[in-house]
């Protein structure tokens, strides 16, 4: 599958990705420990557009190995276009996105679910590398600052989403609220049913009139 790409370039890309992911895992020892329990599990990700395949193997240390070539049978294979993988990666609810997306899952889905849960629980400790570089006091202060920035960033994003939603629904009246929409849909549905009943009644009356006319003749 990866034949159309230079293996050295792919190896370089995978090596870089592997180093970044494993560095993050080393800062989240609980996640690495959870992953170590899945040692030996291999997940294949097959991107159909552009054509690319990556095999992710969980090592006994809990770190991940990325490869472009593997002859073993993966436990799980995910297949789909790049845009579907991006949708999944950026989804707020990956499980729901996975079920509703065009991604194809072959093999055992349990390792994939376990991996998703580990990633969701992943808590990266920024303090350790900062303390190594900056020393105890400055490293701790910087880590606190980063935590604050990330925490604030997360809160700010949530708050912005909420405020934007409120503006669209309440202030700007640009879109009706969900309850109003639901009510409108059920009204439309009820109207449709009433129209159907009226149509049947008219047909019945029309039939009776024509029968009555024939009897008079």
């Amino acid at each position: 599958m990866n034949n159309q790409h230079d293996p050295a370039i792919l190896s370089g890309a995978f090596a870089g990705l592997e180093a970044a992911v494993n560095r993050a895992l080393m800062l989240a020892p609980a996640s690495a420990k959870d992953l170590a329990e899945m040692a030996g599990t291999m997940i294949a990700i097959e991107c159909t557009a552009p054509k690319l395949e990556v095999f992710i193997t969980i090592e006994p240390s809990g770190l991940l190995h990325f490869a472009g070539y593997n002859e073993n049978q993966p436990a799980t294979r995910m297949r789909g276009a790049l845009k579907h993988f991006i949708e999944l990666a950026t989804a707020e609810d990956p499980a729901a996105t996975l079920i509703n997306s065009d991604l194809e899952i072959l093999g055992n889905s349990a390792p994939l679910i376990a991996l998703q849960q580990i990633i969701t629980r992943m808590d990266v400790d920024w303090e350790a590398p900062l303390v190594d570089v900056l020393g105890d006091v400055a490293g701790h202060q910087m880590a606190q600052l980063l935590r604050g920035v990330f925490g604030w960033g997360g809160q700010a994003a949530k708050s912005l989403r909420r405020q934007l939603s409120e503006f669209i629904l309440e202030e700007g009246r640009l879109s009706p609220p969900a309850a109003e929409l639901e009510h409108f849909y059920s009204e439309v549905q009820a109207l449709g049913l009433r129209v159907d009943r009226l149509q049947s009644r008219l047909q019945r009356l029309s039939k009776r009139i024509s029968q009555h006319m024939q009897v008079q003749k």
Partner: protein
Amino acid sequence: MTDHGQSEDTGTDTTDFGFKRVKSEEKASLVRGVFDSVAARYDLMNDLMSAGVHRLWKRFTIELSAVRPGQTVLDIAGGTGDLAERFSRLVGPQGQVILADINAAMLEVGRDRLIDRGALSNIDVVQCDAQYLPFPDNSIDCITIAFGLRNVTDKALAMRAMLRVLRPGGRLLVLEFSKPTSRLLAKAYDAYSFKLLPFMGRIVANDAESYRYLAESIRKHPDQDTLLEMLEDSGFVDCQYHNMTGGIVAVHRGIKA
């Protein structure tokens, strides 16, 4: 990238040593001289000359090996032991890796490095000639020879020796410089090999001649398709090759039936 190991047969009593013709029996000692000279700075020069890309070539070679825990791997012309170290982790404590090289200076550097990294528990270090491998028939699961085959005096003899020691189903992987697939890249590569490479050899290893030999020996090495035929002629089956970095390097794979 430097290379190491052994030399080239022509069917007569002379062979190539870079662009020169030398007596076949002299090539091994001439090659030994080159690697005695570069051994101490071999890894540094590899990184400098390939801008670190040799690590990616080797990474892909390891992927192709499909080595599993418990297997036996022979790394011929393994020199400073970078492949052996990675295989050591793959085969685990139940497996075995044999680091082999004809050159004692290279093996010494490799062995010291493996000791420093605590990686010798399942690695044996053996000084031997690739043409006359001192291992039993059908005893090895995977053989790799990285940047070493072109220095072997009689490549066909070495390939037959490798076939003999491989288990049925075992595989040989030959990682070696080859012919660039694009003419433009070939020109740039020539300029790099014959001008910049000896210059870097002089600056870093204080040895321009050895690095000139390395560049010349690459040009004398068979191209991708010729080496593929040689593998098939030696008795390997399901042979294939993968070009890397535009064909500057190729990894050939052959399976013992």
